[in-house]
């Protein structure tokens, strides 16, 4: 709960601060807090990933970009009315939606009783893997993970295509 409050505070900081370097550092802190919250929520695998990705890779990439571009932001000229409206509209829709959700921490929600239960019950017998996250990730929903690997592949080749110095053709015509 303290963590969540801290996260909100950091977010406010990200909105206010105009020095992009500070923004990147703040978002790194944000990721660490997020990872801690995830541990509280029992998502240890996810927390590990968030810490390495959010606080590690993303920060390195952003700092790299700032190094190649510049580090401060100009004052926006537009009035923030429309963006505020869009963002709040989304928020209201979500608030509306979350009121009907099952209570937090309960064990008898569809999430736990339907597909989730069958993973917990069958994983060890069917795959011999006690970490259910791994068995679901790599076997039951292995196809999603194939897609995920392909996404990384796409992004990797994409960045290389955009940034790597590759041979240029001589223009003819």
């Amino acid at each position: 709960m303290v963590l969540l409050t801290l996260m909100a505070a950091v977010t406010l900081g990200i909105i206010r601060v105009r020095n992009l370097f500070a923004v990147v550092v703040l978002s790194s802190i944000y990721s660490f807090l997020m990872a801690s919250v995830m541990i509280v929520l029992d998502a240890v695998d996810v927390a590990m990933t968030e810490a390495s990705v959010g606080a590690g890779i993303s920060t390195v990439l952003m700092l790299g970009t700032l190094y190649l571009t510049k580090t401060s932001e100009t004052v926006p000229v537009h009035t923030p009315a429309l963006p505020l409206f869009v963002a709040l509209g989304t928020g209201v829709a979500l608030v509306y939606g979350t009121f009907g959700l099952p209570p937090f921490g309960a064990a008898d929600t569809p999430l736990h009783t339907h597909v989730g239960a069958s993973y917990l019950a069958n994983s060890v017998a069917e795959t011999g893997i006690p970490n259910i996250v791994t068995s679901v990730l790599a076997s039951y929903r292995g196809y999603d993970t194939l897609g995920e690997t392909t996404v990384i592949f796409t992004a990797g080749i994409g960045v290389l295509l955009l940034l790597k110095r590759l041979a240029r053709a001589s223009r003819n015509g």
Partner: protein
Amino acid sequence: MRLDVIVRVTTKFFLPFMLLFALYVQLHGDFGPGGGFQAGVITAATVILYAIIFGLAPTMRLVPPIVVESMVPLGVLIFLGVGIAGFVTGDNYLNYSHLAHDQVHGQELGVMLVEAGVLVTVCGTMIAIFYTFADRGRS
């Protein structure tokens, strides 16, 4: 790149342990948190750390860009290949059950291979992206 000797020595001392930890995360993914993605990121972080401390050029000699860039598709190829192996054993795509003598071992083998594929792609992509960003900044 005139850094303190201590930093260099400490880094050299730490790097093997980081790689060892990556290996642990990779292989222990069945029992504890971790897996191909996390191990790939850690491995990439090792190389990136080396590049930050010892400079880009020596790192690129140690881990050549062409190797890194080949790793990006290679990992996906491993994953796709494991899937296609399912056809050969007469099952649907991505069914690992008959890769070994019984279902459990087949699944374990399949998951291990698939995680290795993820590791290769993730690691390759992270290092390749780091190289291109760093290289872009040099000139």
